[in-house]
């Protein structure tokens, strides 16, 4: 019995226990302060779907052996670019969709997803080739590649000649705004699809069915891919490159596929995020998103070398749950302060640090 508990403890891991206890504590605290727990929970559900796909993008990256993809910003800017093109072309308000606004919105988001995931796939191939050249220090390089691509795209966002009034600055300006409203294109289209409210219409638990279904559907697709021949080869190459090579797997090629898939998922993830949020956030907003995603999957139980779909689902829920619930609780406990942001920094970076100390890299056992 004792051994079983110990095994369970090892399977769950200390940080997850702490985080989970913390989550429960925060929940109780919310109840203690008599807050609207149902509203908080529906917020958690919304953010679960919102961030889920971005976190899912970590799975192929970790499994193919490049480690947590801090450079997911590469995919994110592709997603932003795809959405911008979709808005610029004004697909939602084309004359064929005159009768049905809903259809127009779906067409826009579909167009954005397809376009940006194709672009992201191509970019991801190049990124994968780069990461193949720098084996062993992918994490540092990918972080800075992510940072520099954001800075580079900042220059582009300022200079690209957008015509659509939703995108460009209102008064005689050039370039994109800081936040672009999706009101007239695809705002909350997935959230509202088949949404149900449990309980009373105003105060009940709002379930964004479409968003969650899309998230789970993509999870399922990635799961299928990981079980396919290519996916298994990829995981093998990530787990033990030498062994994989010996069994005839082209390690570099599978790494490139994993990276490209991760980048594409990042692009789809940011579009899902933006539609749930109602705005496209340009410029430096996605700068630290990579860190948040990495932290979420690590909280879910992944390591820097192995990750499963379950980790994505659990990790995102826990991480976003804590953030959403802790904010009002902190506001009640300590008035007029923003503990949530600080909490996010400490938890997410602390968990990454913990995972790094546990990762026995190639160089750590040199002595």
């Amino acid at each position, binding site marked *: 019995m004792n051994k079983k508990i110990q095994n369970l403890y090892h399977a769950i891991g200390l940080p997850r226990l702490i985080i989970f206890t913390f989550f429960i504590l925060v929940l109780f605290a919310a109840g203690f302060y008599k807050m609207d727990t149902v509203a908080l929970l529906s917020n958690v559900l919304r953010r679960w779907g919102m961030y889920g796909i971005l976190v899912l993008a970590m799975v192929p990256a970790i499994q193919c052996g490049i480690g947590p993809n801090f450079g997911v910003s590469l995919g994110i800017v592709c997603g932003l670019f795809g959405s911008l093109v979709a808005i610029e072309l004004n697909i939602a308000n084309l004359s064929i969709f005159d009768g049905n606004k809903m259809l127009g919105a779906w067409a826009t988001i579909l167009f954005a997803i397809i376009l940006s995931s194709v672009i992201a796939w191509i970019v991801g191939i190049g990124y994968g080739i780069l990461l193949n050249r720098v084996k062993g220090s992918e994490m540092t390089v990918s972080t800075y590649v992510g940072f*520099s691509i954001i800075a580079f795209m900042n220059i582009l966002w300022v200079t690209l000649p957008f015509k659509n009034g939703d995108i460009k600055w209102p008064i005689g300006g050039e370039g994109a705004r800081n936040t672009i409203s999706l009101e007239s294109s695809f705002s909350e289209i997935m959230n509202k699809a088949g949404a149900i409210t449990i309980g009373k219409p105003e105060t009940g638990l709002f379930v964004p069915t479409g968003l969650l279904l899309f998230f789970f559907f993509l999870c399922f697709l990635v799961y299928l891919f990981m079980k396919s021949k290519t996916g298994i080869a990829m995981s093998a190459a990530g787990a033990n490159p030498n062994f994989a090579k010996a069994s005839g797997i082209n390690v570099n090629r599978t790494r490139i596929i994993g990276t490209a898939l991760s980048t594409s998922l990042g692009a789809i993830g940011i579009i899902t995020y933006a539609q749930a949020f109602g705005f496209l956030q340009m410029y430096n907003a996605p700068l630290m998103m990579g860190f948040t995603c990495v932290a979420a999957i690590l909280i879910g139980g992944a390591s820097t070398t192995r990750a499963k779909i379950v980790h994505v689902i659990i990790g995102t829920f826990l991480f976003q749950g804590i953030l959403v619930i802790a904010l009002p609780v902190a506001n009640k406990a*300590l008035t007029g302060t923003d503990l949530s942001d600080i909490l996010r920094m400490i938890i997410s970076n602390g968990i990454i640090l913990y995972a790094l*100390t546990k990762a026995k890299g190639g160089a750590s056992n040199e002595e």
Partner: protein
Amino acid sequence: MKNNFLSYSKKQLGNGLKNIYSNKVVLMFLILCIFGIATTGKPLIFTVSEVFTRFGRNTFLVIALIIPVLAGLGLNFGIVVGAMAAQISIFFVVYWGFTGITGLILCVLLSTPIAILFGFLVGWLYNKTKGAEMISGMVLAYFADGLYQLFFLFILGGIIPIKDTTLMIAGGIGVKNTIDLTGNLKYALDTVSMLLLLRILLVLYFVFSAANVILRKKKEGKSGYKLSIIKISVTILLLLLTLIPAIRDFLGTDRLLLLNAITIGCVLAILYVITKICSIKLIQKHKELEVNKYLAMIIIAIIVYALTYIPVVFDITMSISLPVCTYAAIILICGFNRWLLSTKLGQNMRTVGQSRTVANSAGINVNKTRIIAMCISTVLASWGQLIYLQNLGTFSTYGAHSMVGLYAIAALLVGGAGVQMANNKQAILGVILFHTLFVVAPLSASNLLGSSLIGEYFRVFICYGVIALSLALHAWKTIKKPAKQKELK
């Protein structure tokens, strides 16, 4: 002799050019800077004086990075933690109401033990994450930022009572966004006069050599005795010289005109070279190569001095004055780095940097050496941040440290340093190039493209891009090497 010297200088010049060419990053930045300076649309004086100010502010922080690089820890993204130590001490010193140089010394005294503690913790973490120090350092910086904000926003005023509420957010919990250092710590180091500095240095040197003489006399009698006596008497003579009114008045100021600085530098260099040549010629007769080196130094000194007679250069040198003490601190720390690397500890660090396996089998305690390197780097970073903030004059509580690591590392890499190799020269060159670009990029962009925003984004891009590029290049090289070695086998 003459012919010899010519061929020597030709060779040196050729080597120098080749070095620059082989270091593509430096070359690229040189070209970018020259292009930027040419298109700023502002007078040259503006750019040069900006660069000099930034040089005084930032160089110390960049030099704090050198030791960990040589100890094989890579670029220390964790220097942000050192900067935090400095900022914590600054807050308390300002809160307690200390001003001027006393305040600064108190800051140093307070921040050093904190920085050592932080350095120890960082080193411990790096030992746990060998091979991934850089990413750990980066994540650590963000993690520490969270704790730092927790400290300043909740613990100060919340748990530690703060009576004086002028520094706090209305309500008494949490420190204000910016703390004005005008009137307390601003220019605390910059305004220390040359006279004071010189006297302190001379007295210290006097005490040091006197102690040396006494110890030597006890140990081994008269060897080296004469030279020490000469040194001591020169020190006393110099000290007496500072009492002469004309010299005292000249040294009494805290800023040195660039023109005077160049003149003094050239004269000192020539004096130094002459004594060296004399000693080589008189004592060790066969060292032609050395003589050539010193002759080259004389010629460079004369050329530099002659350059100041060009009207444009003369105007610039007349309009810029340097804070002497800050520059002295930079020179001292460069000297410290060189000295440290010549000691046994420094050699150990280099060995660890080359190969931990070899170091371990040679009986060096690898983990301990790495922790010491981290402590030194963190302490230097905290001092560097003190110098930076006292010169800047405003202390933004939650933002002052966030870019420290990024800018310092980018500057070092621009100077041609790598992940495993760095020296003082590269740091200095890097700071000059990087900050020149930093000054001119937005101005040029607004001049050429009509939008200064592009320039701002461009310089951020340059920062991140330089780091990404050099890290990628370094990783690429280190992968290629083992592959080649295998082929040879």
